[in-house]
């Protein structure tokens, strides 16, 4: 039983990271209909910048804040450089552009640092003991951040004027422009927001893994799988999908074999798509790939 709870906590913790990634991807997808293939690079950039600042002597909290701000800025740059100029081009082109940005970001980081580094955890202890269960408190922090971020976003989109405007325009960009909503600003906000979530995910995950230039590759794919599980374009679905992927991965790693854990989630996704082409949510949110 204790191992089950440990696996559960680890799975939910890891899943929270994936959920944050998937959430960011979904926000960008819903508002821009582009699947941001540089999301993994943003995740990595968040971890990397925070780590370098910490190693340079900056306090943990400050380093985290600066790193998130920096990645948010990168997100804004991607919006201006690789997204807005391509608004009317083919979809394949837009996807390639985000791919290109990913290469550039990963390339720059890879050029600057050659090796993999370890990142110190947020709380100084390696493990915490509650009753007979030992686990890494970092996982609880991950879950906590997801809850906070999720709630904050939900409140923002539901109760603030800006949030409501964005929600309205997201589903109907053309209508929004007609009503006078500054659609370009919406794009900017959503890209920045998405990038921020990716950075947070990266910083959270960093202490439990190694920080390297390519650390974002797998989480990116996992986030995509999470979105598929939860139904593409669905915000609650992305969170549920993320948590599921975390549980599948940790569960697979622990109960079957470490090799399988890595692909367990993907096999699940593949099977799901074969059986139910619209993901778990059925005929829920259906993001139309904008045909030019």
């Amino acid at each position: 039983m204790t191992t089950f709870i440990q696996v559960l906590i680890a799975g939910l913790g890891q899943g929270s990271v994936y959920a944050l990634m998937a959430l960011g991807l979904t926000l960008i997808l819903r508002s821009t209909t582009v699947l941001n293939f540089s999301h993994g690079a943003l995740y990595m950039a968040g971890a990397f910048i925070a780590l370098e600042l910490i190693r340079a002597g900056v306090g943990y909290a400050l380093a985290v804040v600066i790193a998130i701000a920096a990645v948010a800025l990168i997100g804004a740059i991607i919006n201006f450089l690789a997204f807005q100029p391509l608004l009317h081009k083919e979809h394949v082109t837009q996807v390639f552009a985000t791919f290109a940005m990913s290469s550039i970001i990963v390339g720059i980081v890879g050029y600057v640092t050659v090796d993999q580094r370890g990142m110190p955890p947020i709380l100084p202890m390696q493990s915490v003991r509650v009753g007979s269960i030992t686990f890494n408190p970092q996982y609880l922090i991950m879950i906590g951040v997801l809850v906070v971020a999720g709630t904050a976003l939900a409140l923002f989109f539901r109760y603030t004027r800006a949030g409501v405007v964005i929600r309205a325009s997201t589903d109907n960009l053309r209508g929004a422009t007609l009503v006078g909503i500054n659609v370009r600003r919406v794009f900017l906000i959503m890209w920045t927001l998405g990038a921020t979530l990716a950075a947070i995910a990266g910083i959270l995950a960093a202490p439990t893994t190694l920080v390297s230039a390519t650390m974002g590759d797998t989480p990116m794919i996992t986030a995509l799988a999470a979105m598929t599980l939860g139904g593409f374009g669905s915000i609650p679905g992305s969170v549920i999908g993320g948590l599921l992927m975390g549980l599948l991965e940790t569960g697979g790693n622990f109960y079957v074999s470490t090799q399988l854990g890595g692909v367990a989630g993907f096999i699940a996704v593949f099977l799901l798509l074969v059986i139910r082409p619209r993901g778990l949510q059925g005929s829920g949110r259906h993001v139309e790939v904008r045909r030019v």
Partner: protein
Amino acid sequence: MSALRRGSVAVPVALLIVAIALPFLLNGYHVFIFSMAFAYIIAAVGFDMALGRAGLLAFTGSAFFGLGAFVAGRLATLGVPTELTLLAAIAAGAVLGFLYGAVTVRLQAYYFAITGIVLMLLLNFFYRNAEAITGGYSGFSIPAPSFLLAGGGTLRSATAMYFVGLCLAVPAFIVARLIGRSRVGRSWRVAREAPAVAEGLGINVWRARLLAVVLSSAYLALGGAWFGYLSLRFLPESFMFEQLLLLFLMLIIGGLRSVTGSALGAVILIWFNQYLAEFVGVSDIIYGISLLACVLLFSRGIYGTLSNRFRGFRESLL
């Protein structure tokens, strides 16, 4: 004007003449690089069928490229003559392409893209773990090609490999062009732009897309098989995202939906790749910037844009 329109053979023929002359003008190393280009030409013109013409977000490029290398390479280590290993690679690509496509082609664009990535990961998982067959992480060596028709002797010289590659690439190119201008090619085009209209014309869009996947997978596998022989080694990690990005770049730079463009893109990228290998660590950045620049500046790829300027060079659907 109308003769040109009917599908410029001028450019491809000119390229062919240059290609035949090249080995006599260049040294062995350069000849080898161009050899490599042939493997990618086959892969690229095939990949364009699914990605460019049928408009599918196919992330399957490196998966099938690797499959071809694996199948042909493995059979080669068992002593099977090269004609047969290449045929086996094509068959493997077609069969797996059919199985994969049959369940995924009906999916919406992004879902389909994800299945391509998943396929790539699953194949990689298989290569890394089925050590007995695949050699695990470190793969296995692939012997030099030996053709029954050539009396079973092994090919070793760069020039010989070059011309064999040319003999594979030219028919592949011609067939791709013919398909592109056939009823099948046209049906892909309509199915891509306006599926409702396609259905109204009697085109079963699902079947058309499945065909595109099968054909592109067979082409990719053939290209990968030859790539294996040229690399002399099968290595699982060389068939992941970097390989996929390379294939994407070839298509984008050459211009989607142009067979000549894809071929040119392959040659350009192979050389670019070689050149960048000297600047270790910066290649990703340069690739990324080039891809971004290409995508921003040329809406139809370099070849596509050029051929737009000179209307007569446009690859017509007829």
